[in-house]
């Protein structure tokens, strides 16, 4: 109906505040969803791109242990085995200037069909020949070269595992051609890579392109002990698996934002419906059917939704750029070096944003639309009955709430591994508790009105009673604020508890005075080693009392990458390692005599392993099962660590190198002297980092904080969304009560007094929603810690709720509510009584 449409379309612009709030809510919700999705997918793409660029078109790989594969295996495979679709690869990390790169050492003559390179400028074919014949020659992406100020032919220093090597740029790769992930890769001939890394005689892996299964079987059989054949299909899965928990958590946060956005929209739409009740009643009396009314409201919401979506998409794109930086930083820190990624506009993200925005609008408008149909055709149905109806409805809401909470608890109890179900359960519980908030508000305002009124006077009592009585309007606003504040409590407590646990764990673990290791370029790969001669000299320094050696390597299994931590266990370390499963005495005995290993909490949880189980690991002498004697506390972000006796490690992996040492000084005050001595010994030989336990603690916590920056950003956004909603809600609320307040003015209340009344109400609303938020927030925190984090990362964290967090949240709620109410109450106070009295 043309005219019907006009009635609503003209209504909204007349109430720009409502319009703005609704649009803002949708836009923000959509923006957050789109931003997180874009950031996630762009980061993943960069991650996969980085991994793919390095792995190329290989269908399979032959990999070995930490010491790689003998190069003779490749020759044998190629000559005797006749496997011509094979390419040898040596990988590592290097840095040039301030920048870190993945190093890819290849045989240019074998690369056809594996990786594609597009030579930019400089020598074309000649460049490849130089790579083979001239030591130190390498190739870089032309942008990276430009960023480093290198021209083709320039010499430069390349730092590998702390040692300086001469190098020169033989050619650059064109920026457009080839795979995007090559921008953070230094490509060299195998010979150069081997020489730089000290890997003469060894390869990191052999890439293969095998078409048929018979070929795969044949090659697998012919492999020597210590090597395995892995398929590339599994690799992407594993790669993504590493960051899945991370990205799932991010997505969940974005859904939380949408949830608040939905509240916001519901807020606005239902207010417009409630405000127009009389008009809707008139229309009903004119014979507009319920279906037509509902259609009208939904159509309005749809139009709002679409406009909001457009704004949200733009906002989301901008936001994603910021978010992406944070996400890739986290990936760099914890998983793999991906360098700087750029936002790739994925159509799918846009679709998600649109669906979320439109869906949220329709969902949010559904209830108000239904409510609108309940607007009785206009006669003179008294207000009191309306409130009655709402009060009746409250019973229904409570039932739904209980059902939701029960459902959520059931979900959490029945499953114990699924992260997605964990989030779903949390969502149900949160929604259920949120639905209880209006009832809570009603109850509390009724109970408190009397006592407070006795203290503060009649008008205050009126104000407080007004809260409870006008539940049809205040309920939603209070709930939205409560959920937002609860989210801040939840995340605050979670992060606080987490940080506390990590801090405590670090303090326990970092019990030596100093730690010495080659610098770590990026998260993940760990095969650095201290030059053996240098090591001997350092250990012999007079300041040293005793030393704990450790070797840290990654091994590749068919189920993913595992970190091996081989240690010479010192008493201090032993005393400070907390075993959460397994009998301590037996476990340590087994560890010491090399008959068993210990695994970290995350590994135990994520892969369902326990003390007494066996874990299969690929060694230099073939795959072997190791008995697990215990599970120890660890806050690693990878897929788990296996800690074993260094002798056991040497026995099976035949690797003597040392990654890092924990130094216990004779006199802790000698720390600086020690550091100076190490610097003097290592100068020119290998770059080593000497860090005190305090510094490591600080660095680790910095990484921790950095990781949670994202979380902070997201929940701040959530609060912002809720705050905006509050402002809108209160404005609408006060506008609604124009007549009532006008009456008060007519009765002789001064503008000041009326304003004060309004402020008491908003204060009261803030306080009540804050109080409701407290238990809600603690519940959220508990679930986040014991369900979400546990299932995502396998960590075991003790919850500690600081009173300051709770008080802070309460203050936030009150402040938000009060601030939100300032403008409306000021407007209200200035309205002349007469105009207020007149029916709109």
């Amino acid at each position, binding site marked *: *109906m043309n005219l019907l449409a006009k009635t609503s379309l*003209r209504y909204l612009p007349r109430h720009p505040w409502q319009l703005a709030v609704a649009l803002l809510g949708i836009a923000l919700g959509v923006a957050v969803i789109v931003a997180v999705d874009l950031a996630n997918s762009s980061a993943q793409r960069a991650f996969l791109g980085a991994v793919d660029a390095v792995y190329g078109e290989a269908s399979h790989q032959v990999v070995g242990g930490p010491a790689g594969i003998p190069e003779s295996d490749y020759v044998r495979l190629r000559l005797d085995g006749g496997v011509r679709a094979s390419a040898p690869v040596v990988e590592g990390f290097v840095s040039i200037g301030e920048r870190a790169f993945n190093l890819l050492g290849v045989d240019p003559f074998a690369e056809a069909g594996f990786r594609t390179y597009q030579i930019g400028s400089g020598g074309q074919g000649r460049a490849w020949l130089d790579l083979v014949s001239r030591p130190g020659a390498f190739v870089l992406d032309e942008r990276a070269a430009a960023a480093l100020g290198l021209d083709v032919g320039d010499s430069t220093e390349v730092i590998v595992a702390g040692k300086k090597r001469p190098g020169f740029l033989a050619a650059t790769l064109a920026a457009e051609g080839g795979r995007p992930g090559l921008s953070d890769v230094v490509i060299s001939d195998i010979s150069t890579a081997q020489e730089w890394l000290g890997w003469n005689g060894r390869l990191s892996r052999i890439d293969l392109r095998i078409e048929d299964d018979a070929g795969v079987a044949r090659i697998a059989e012919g492999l020597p002990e210590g090597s395995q054949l892995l398929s590339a299909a599994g690799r992407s899965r594993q790669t993504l698996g590493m960051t899945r928990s991370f990205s799932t958590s991010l997505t969940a946060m974005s859904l939380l934002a949408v949830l608040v956005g939905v509240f916001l929209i519901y807020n606005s739409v239902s207010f417009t419906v409630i405000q127009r009740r009389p008009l809707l009643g008139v229309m009903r009396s*004119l*014979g*507009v059917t319920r279906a037509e009314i509902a259609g009208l409201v939904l159509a309005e919401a749809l139009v709002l939704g679409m406009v909001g979506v457009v704004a949200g998409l733009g906002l989301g794109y901008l936001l994603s750029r910021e978010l992406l930086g944070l996400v890739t930083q986290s990936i760099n820190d914890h998983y793999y070096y991906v360098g700087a990624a750029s936002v790739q506009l994925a159509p799918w993200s846009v679709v998600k944003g649109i669906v979320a925005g439109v869906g949220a609008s329709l969902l949010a408008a559904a209830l108000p639309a239904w409510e609108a149909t309940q607007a009785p055709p206009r*006669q003179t149905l008294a207000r009191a009955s309306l409130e009655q109806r709402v009060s009746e409805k409250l019973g229904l809401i409570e039932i739904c709430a209980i059902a939701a909470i029960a459902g959520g608890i059931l979900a959490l109890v029945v499953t114990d591994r699924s992260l997605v179900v964990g989030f779903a359960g949390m969502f149900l519980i949160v929604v259920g508790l949120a639905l209880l908030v209006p009832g809570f508000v009603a109850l509390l305002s009724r109970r408190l009105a009397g006592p407070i009124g006795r203290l503060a006077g009649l008008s205050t009592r009126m104000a407080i009673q007004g809260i409870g009585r006008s539940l049809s309007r205040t309920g939603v606003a209070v709930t939205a604020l409560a959920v937002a504040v609860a989210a801040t409590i939840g995340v605050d407590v979670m992060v606080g508890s987490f940080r506390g646990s990590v801090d405590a764990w670090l303090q326990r673990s970092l019990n030596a005075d100093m730690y010495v290791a080659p610098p770590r370029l990026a998260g993940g790969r760990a095969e650095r080693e201290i030059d053996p001669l240098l090591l001997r000299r350092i250990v012999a320094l007079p300041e040293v009392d005793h030393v704990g050696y450790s070797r840290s390597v990654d091994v590749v299994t068919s189920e993913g990458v595992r970190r091996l931590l081989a240690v010479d266990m010192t008493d201090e370390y032993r005393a400070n390692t907390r075993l959460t499963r397994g009998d301590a005495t037996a476990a340590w005995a087994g560890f010491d005599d090399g008959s068993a290993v210990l695994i970290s909490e995350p590994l135990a949880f994520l892969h369902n392993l326990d003390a007494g189980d066996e874990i299969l690991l690929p060694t230099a002498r073939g795959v072997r099962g190791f008995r697990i004697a215990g599970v120890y506390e660890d806050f690693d972000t990878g897929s788990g660590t296996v800690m074993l006796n260094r002798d056991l490690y040497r026995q099976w992996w035949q690797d003597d190198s040392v990654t890092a040492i924990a130094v216990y000084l004779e006199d802790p005050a000698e720390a600086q002297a020690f550091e100076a001595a190490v610097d003097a010994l290592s100068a020119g030989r290998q770059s080593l980092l000497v860090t005190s336990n305090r510094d490591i603690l600080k660095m680790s916590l910095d990484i921790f904080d950095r990781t949670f920056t994202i979380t902070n950003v997201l929940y701040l956004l959530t609060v912002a969304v809720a705050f905006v909603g509050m402002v809108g809600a209160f404005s609408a609320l006060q506008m609604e009560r124009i007549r009532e307040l006008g009456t008060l003015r007519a009765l002789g209340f001064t503008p000041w007094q009326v304003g004060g009344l309004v402020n008491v109400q908003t204060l009261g609303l803030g306080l009540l929603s804050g109080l409701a938020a407290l238990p809600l927030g603690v519940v959220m925190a508990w679930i986040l810690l014991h369900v979400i984090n546990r299932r995502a990362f396998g960590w075991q964290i003790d919850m500690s709720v600081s009173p300051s967090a709770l008080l802070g949240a309460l203050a936030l709620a009150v402040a938000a509510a009060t601030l939100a109410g300032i403008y409306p109450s000021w407007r209200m106070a200035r309205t002349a009584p007469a105009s207020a009295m007149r029916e709109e």
Partner: protein
Amino acid sequence: MRVAVAHNGSAPAPSAIRLLNVSKSYREGERLHVVLDAINAEVVAGDTVALLGSSGSGKSTLLNLISGIDQPDAGAIELAGTRLTALDERARTLYRRRNLGFVYQFFNLLPTLTVAENIRLPLELNGVAAVASERRSLELLDAVGLAARATSFPERLSGGEQQRVAIARALAHAPALVLADEPTGNLDEETGEQVLGVLQKMLVEHGSTMVLATHSRKVAAIARRVWRTQNGHLIEESGISL
């Protein structure tokens, strides 16, 4: 009671309104308030009836029942032969759309539509094309003397003007029955008389039946019959209990 006029030997035209043992109570807080107790009444087409009573005496309730907005707890209501109480909500809404017009105390014009658009609304709801409805609304506006205000928004009109527009709107789709709830309640005496005059004139022109709820005997005087609600009963002012 006017005798129903027979039309050339065919059956007599059905009554405009028939109430058959209609009962209605309301719950307010904890109390049960019986408003109508098994009422029977009949209104002939073209008649005007005034419902007299103070606020809360049940006249609004009766209007709600007659218009089909509300359903009685017991009994049946027939409008021009159609058993309203047997229809579902949607059917009643559509019936209302076609056959009823309302005039309210507080005018209740839709503020986001112009004066002319307000009058067109019931026409368009009944499927009249835009051009025809435009024409008709202007005709009606002319009839109530407000042709010049066609494109104004209601907020710009005085109370009396708004009510006149409301009257035009009520009769736009030529409904058989018009219900008026305190039509002059929000107007001063002089304007009120003016408005009543317009109302009467329009009724005569269109031949609609009217039920008018009011607390003022003066206003009730324009009706041919006067009913009063009291203790759940309907009493004709002539003293006969219905």
